């Protein structure tokens, strides 16, 4: 049975540094929730507080309505996959996976059976008698997962478990881990700074910033409707153009009503322009509400799967436009130096408030 987690008003300071600032968060049973954020945003502190390795200064962590904030880690019965896997080097693969069962007094016969089942779930059953040192990074990762699920914890925590793997393997494991989570039906809290990983795997993403949760939503909502410039900037590529620039230089007649409704409530609004969500205006598309801006192509970069054009707007600001590399697109793509008009559809317009982001 998966468990729910209810975190309220969790605070943790390290001297002057506030790592968790009154964080509240609920994770429903069976949910895959990802904590995403830059380093120092508090995501690891939050995860370690749930695991019991970090003692918060104040706040509450309840699992299935039972307070666990003061419980030592070994009494929490929460599975965890560590960043460096933390496999015991003096034990074989099977001994590693059997360790939590041994601690729980599971008999030899049942233990062997469960070790085999857990290793089979991660396709490592052939490696049971190997030494940990003989395994590759990806194999260690799988064993670490097997060890975290073998004692059937209701909650599994993962601390950047894929960060040490190369890109290909990482992408494979993302899908595999997600499938495993769905099959086992466990609650997973996952920490990563890889936004693509978060988008791929999660039911919901909590974007953290300076010890607070900036936005918590489904991957689609986080990407399509970022709550702030920080979120829009952290997830995906975006260029920001102040609303004043758009309104003074752009042709927005068709989107006027829409824009007015959106801009009305915001202080110092800026447009979030995602390179793949804008297109070159060929003049053919006049049917729906859209925003048009004029500019000059500065440079076109070929990236294999994408063409990226850097376009200087009339205001001088440079934005990016991205297209696929189908031959027909490439053939008609504007050259550097040529004037272009870009078009953003009303439904793709995203506006947030201006703020200074630390770089």
């Amino acid at each position: 049975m998966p468990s729910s987690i209810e975190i309220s008003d969790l605070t943790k300071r390290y001297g002057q540094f506030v790592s968790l600032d009154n964080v509240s968060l609920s994770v429903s049973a069976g949910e895959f929730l990802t904590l995403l954020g830059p380093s120092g945003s508090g995501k690891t502190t939050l995860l370690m507080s749930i695991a019991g390795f970090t003692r918060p200064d104040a706040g509450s962590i309840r699992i299935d309505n039972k307070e666990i904030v003061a419980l030592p880690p070994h009494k929490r019965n929460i599975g965890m996959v560590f960043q460096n896997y933390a496999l015991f080097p003096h034990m074989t693969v099977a001994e590693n996976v059997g360790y939590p069962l041994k601690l729980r007094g599971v008999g030899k016969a049942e233990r062997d059976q469960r070790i085999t089942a857990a290793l089979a779930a991660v396709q490592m059953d052939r490696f049971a008698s190997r030494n940990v040192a003989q395994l590759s990074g990806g194999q260690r990762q799988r064993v670490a997962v097997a060890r975290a699920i073998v004692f059937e914890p209701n909650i599994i925590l993962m601390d950047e478990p894929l960060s040490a793997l190369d890109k290909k393997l990482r992408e494979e494991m993302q899908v595999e881990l997600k499938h495993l989570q769905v099959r086992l039906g466990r609650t997973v809290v996952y920490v990563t700074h890889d936004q693509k990983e978060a988008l791929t795997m999660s039911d919901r993403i909590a974007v953290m910033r300076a010890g607070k949760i900036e936005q918590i939503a489904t991957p689609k909502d986080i990407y399509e409707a970022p709550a702030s410039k920080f979120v829009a900037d952290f997830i995906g590529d975006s260029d920001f153009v102040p609303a004043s620039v758009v309104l003074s230089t752009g042709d927005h007649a068709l989107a006027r009503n829409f824009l007015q409704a959106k801009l009305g409530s915001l202080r110092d609004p800026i447009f979030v322009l995602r390179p793949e969500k804008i297109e070159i205006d060929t003049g053919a598309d006049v049917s729906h509400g859209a925003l048009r801006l004029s500019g000059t192509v500065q440079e076109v970069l070929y990236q294999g799967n994408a063409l990226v054009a850097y376009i200087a707007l009339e205001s001088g600001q440079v934005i990016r436009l991205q297209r696929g590399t189908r031959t027909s697109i490439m053939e008609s793509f504007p050259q550097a130096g040529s004037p272009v008009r870009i078009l953003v559809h009303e439904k793709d317009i995203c506006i947030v408030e201006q703020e200074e982001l630390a770089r």
Partner: protein
Amino acid sequence: MTAGVNSAILASVDASEKRQSHLLLFPAIAVVSLAIAPFLWLGALSFVADGQISLEHYARMLANPSYITTFVTTLQMSAVVTAFVVLLGFPAAYAISLLPHRLATAALTLVAIPFWTSLLVRTYAWMVLLQRNGLINTWAIELGLVERPMRLANSFLGTSIGMIHIMLPLFIFTLYGTVKAIDRTLLRAAANLGASPIRTFMTVFLPLSLPGVVTGAMLTFIICLGFYVTPQLLGGGNVTTIPMRVQQNILIYSDWGAASALGVVLIVIVALVMLTLRAVVGKRG
């Protein structure tokens, strides 16, 4: 081989590097001629008596019970000292490994200070402390712990105390490296999987620090076998170790053969200890 562009130049660079690398042989030659050759020569002496090849020196050792006693004393002393060094040194190394970097450096410096102090000075210091009317006895009597002064100096006990103090830093340094290198996330992982702190220590920390303990203990034991000054001074004639007999044989009887026979037996003992330990520990991984 085909001659390509620059192949002659590249080949000559290869050759000159090879010539230069021969220079590295000099230390090896020095070691062989200055250390190993005399060592073997001394070993060969033990099989010579009155100009003839014989086992007389070894036979005398077996026939003379005082030699047996000396061997037993030396081994006993080394074993006792090693045991206490491990018991005292392990918690110390563990505790230092838990300290934040600065404090750990300070603690290791404190450990190093006696290590840098001359062995002779430390031995004399212990003589002062352990004497009949030394500091320890005086305080113990004043505190009412004992009525009459204890016999600390000039005994097996006193020698052991001195040697433990002398050997402890070396053991702590040896073990500290191992203990410090143990990944602390492993301890977290054990706790996360349900192990209490004691279980974590027994099932993860201890097995992982064992190689360091064994290395440190072996080093301690072997060095203890060769102690001369400390048992001489702190034993006060009541403790006789093999190195003392070696010295007697050379300085008093001028019998190099007998002295080196003792050395050979000592080396054999050391080799046996090492092989046994390696067999026992090696099996565990």
